[in-house]
């Protein structure tokens, strides 16, 4: 029998979350974000959160919802520029912000999940990002040592998933979700469609179920688009 990771919904899936914990939250902008898990965090009113997420949502959606309620103490991100409330809290000093080059953020999450405590990368050498970090030359080129990231909970969103926690993402909604799924002590996956084991081709799975502790079928997805951009029909 395959393992069964299914929980009833976001409420059960977030059992154990507590004030002051560290959370990884998948998505790029508003694309591929775990909408249900974020809503549940808002509902629970958990505070003092450290959130590791490439972006911080917009004012009234995504992680912006947690910012509005001042639930987030610290953001670890690569780009946070679509959010007035974020700006206000950051400039006032209410919100701590740790900005990380996007590739280093992705690789540090993967490293956390893969048992690699640290690695060298050229990104950020010679900039303020490198301050206090070990520098070493490889092939004559300077690199800095970056450390793995870990989280108490990782919230990820996939397109399809099976009851054993195997996940398939759609298009560019994959982004940070697979690495964050690897790096959570407890990884909660929400999916648009939950299917029995055996329905997904074992050759086409993006996140093996071994990285997922809890899975549920999400609901009410808004899937907002930040910048609808179109071209005229000829």
């Amino acid at each position, binding site marked *: 029998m395959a393992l069964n990771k299914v929980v009833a919904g976001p409420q059960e899936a977030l059992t154990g979350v507590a004030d002051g914990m560290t959370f990884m939250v998948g998505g*790029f*902008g*508003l*694309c*591929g974000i775990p909408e249900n898990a974020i809503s549940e965090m808002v509902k629970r009113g958990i505070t003092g959160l450290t959130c590791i997420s*490439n972006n911080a949502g917009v004012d009234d959606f995504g992680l912006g919802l947690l910012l509005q309620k001042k639930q987030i103490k610290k953001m670890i*991100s*690569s*780009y*946070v*520029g*679509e959010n007035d409330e974020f*700006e206000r809290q*950051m*400039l006032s000093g209410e919100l701590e*912000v740790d*900005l990380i*080059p*996007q*590739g*280093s*953020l*992705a*690789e540090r*999450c*993967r490293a956390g999940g893969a048992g690699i405590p640290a690695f060298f*990368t*050229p*990104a*950020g*050498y*010679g*900039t*303020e*990002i490198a301050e206090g970090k070990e520098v070493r030359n490889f092939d004559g080129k300077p690199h800095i040592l970056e450390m793995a990231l870990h989280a108490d909970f990782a919230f990820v969103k996939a*397109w399809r998933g099976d009851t054993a926690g195997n996940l398939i*993402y*759609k*298009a*560019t*909604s*994959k*982004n*940070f*979700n*697979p*690495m964050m799924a690897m790096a959570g002590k407890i990884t909660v996956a929400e999916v648009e469609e939950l299917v029995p084991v055996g329905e997904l081709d074992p050759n086409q799975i*993006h996140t093996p179920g071994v990285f997922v502790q809890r899975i549920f079928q999400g609901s009410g997805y808004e*899937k*907002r*688009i*930040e*910048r*609808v*951009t*179109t*071209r*005229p*029909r000829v």
Partner: protein
Amino acid sequence: MLSKDQIAQRIAQELQNGWYVNLGIGIPTLVANHIPDGIDVEFQSENGILGMGPFPYEGEEDADLINAGKQTITAMPGAVYFDSATSFAMIRGKHIQLTVLGAMEVAQNGDIANWKIPGRMVKGMGGAMDLVASADNIIVAMMHTNKKGASKLLKACSLPLTGVGCVTRVVTNLAFLEVKNGAFHLLERAPGVSVEEIKNATEGELIINGEIPEMNL
């Protein structure tokens, strides 16, 4: 003087067949509209696609298919989606042949500053630091001067750096320049722009060797 679209057009002339190209936000995005005939390239967007196509027709937007600027896009035949770690493996591993991005300042030693203005809201570096630290071939697309008329091609960057000694070429509204041996080398003038104008708008060391041709757009 070049329009933003013409800056993109001039950069597009540098594309070579078979290249994978990462285009930053702003002017660089426009490069995709000017691919020369007979040149096949593929565009990477670092949020997880190779083979990025044009914007979708109205009504055909897919919330799951965006570029790094969070705009809705389409995928070309032969496209592929991947996660952010794989995306930056491509970038860091030098599998992308050309990076085009904007800048606030470029220094004559190739340093670039494009992510932070002290005292202002900092939005973050996104993927820019990874891109500039790894790419061998970086073209900066920007205005030659800022809104106050001050040169953006400097002896040394005054703003916090994004990367050191990495920029190889710059295309501005005034000129096409190469960055090497600690100086800006003027290669081409924008149509109707004199060498004198470019000199006056360039704070960094400017090397002018012989007759400087006008761009051919």
